């Protein structure tokens, strides 16, 4: 069955082509029968019935960026963990499990240190807590 070896990726190509076909086909079919009466109001962005103010492509909050940064570290880490995890069982069977376990532990402990650091810095908090001492105290009125 050596000739079939390259064919193992064929269904993926077929499925992607089918996805494009389903999407394109249903949109094309719709374009033949659906109504097409565009007008200016219909084609404005929805803002609860008001005239849209400005563009939506404005600055956004920096905390999304921080989340993305932390994500990249962990994603690269998990991508690197996959091969080690895949061979762990075989190494364990031939008696080299301890070596691999130590390397996994070292690798993960660096990451744990990273996440603890982020946690301490407050980067994992969505709403940054303010320094309590600098908070203006509001006098209670009776």
């Amino acid at each position, binding site marked *: 069955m050596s000739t079939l070896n390259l064919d193992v990726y064929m269904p993926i190509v077929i499925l992607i082509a089918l996805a494009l076909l389903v999407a394109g086909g249903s949109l094309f079919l719709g374009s033949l029968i*659906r109504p097409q009466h565009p007008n200016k109001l219909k084609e404005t962005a929805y803002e609860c019935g008001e005239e849209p103010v400005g563009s939506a492509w404005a600055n956004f909050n920096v905390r999304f960026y921080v989340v993305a940064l932390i994500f990249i570290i962990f994603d690269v880490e998990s991508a690197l963990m996959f091969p080690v995890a895949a061979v762990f069982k075989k190494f364990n069977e031939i008696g080299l499990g301890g070596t691999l376990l130590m390397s996994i532990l070292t690798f993960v402990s660096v990451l744990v240190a990273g996440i603890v650091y982020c946690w301490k810095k407050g980067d994992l908090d969505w709403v940054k807590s303010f320094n309590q001492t600098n908070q203006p105290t509001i006098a209670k009125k009776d």
Partner: protein
Amino acid sequence: MNSTVVSYFSQSNEFQNVTNWLTQILGFNASSLVAFIIFAVFSLIIVGAMATIGGLGTYAERKISADLQARIGPNRVGPFGILQFLADGVKMILKEDIVTTNADRFTFNLAPVLCLVGVFATLAVVPYSSGFMLADLNVGIFYLVGMASLVGVGVFLGGYASNSKWSMLGGMRGASQIISYEIPATLSIIAIVLLAGGLSMKTLIDGQGGAPQDWYIFHNPFAFMGFFVYFISALAETNRAPFDLPEAESELVSGYHTEYTGMKFGLFALAEYIEVFVVCGVAVALFLGGYKVPFDLGSGQILVEKLGLDGMLAQNIGQFLELGSFFTKTLLLYYVVIWVRWTLPRLRVDQLMTLCWKYLTPIALVNLIGCAVWMYAFNGKSIFALIFHAAGSAGGH
């Protein structure tokens, strides 16, 4: 390679005959051509089945939510309203297609297609049964994780390209949520890869047995926790309630697909419902024994020995039993997903991030280390095997 549909069929004589016949007629080795035809037919079957499951998913969602809220739900179109999804589909095709003037037209059209491509591509490695699996890639689960994240790109592009504030907020939330929850989900998957010792779906399932005590979820306490971490993260990755913040209708109108009409919205919805099926299927394959049937009925060996059936026929019966096993477990999980949606209230966005980074990720890391240490300490034996072993040696004294 042995578990793709083609190699399953190549066991039969007819396959060899047809291949030889075509080779003679066409004058070149036709095995690739035959493989292509079989793949195409089975891809069509799977896509058809998945579109139906996606459609029935919307119906099931409405019917189950009605059941949970003591309503009747859709009951007009067809018996018990079961054809409601076809009516919805026709309606979506007939709806006017509106693209707002400020939108980025190309990416606006690209986003739903990207979602659909990402989900369809993952269908290739979902293990329906030992013979009925389109591609048994040696990097199976890794490929699935990678392809599934295309959906996140589609969600963000959809929100961004619409140039509407609601869409933008939904898209930003969607992107940050999907990438965040990918971490605990992937770490839980790695823990199971550690136990199985391979990345292909077949290896992952072959390490398990048909009966629950042989499933990876009951392999050790860490894997048990890992299942719930994976399931919660999968809910968040597919934007299902209680994590449906990207499309939170009570605060963001409709989130990232606010500006989408008609079939483009339909493609998003279809992709979402199929993705729910895929992540349930992965949870079943990794933790709940996959397609395995108790007493090794799936291979058909017992049927040949006890009932004296023909080998190929027994194998085919075994395949159907395996399909039944996989789909039963997956659809039960699907029910749980819908059940959760109509039971739990939506999280706030800061609670969402707290849950992911301060609870699930540390727990998943502990599970990962726990599984590795368990494998090393107990030489890969499951907790039940250890208990039986201990009980056996205690009885021997």
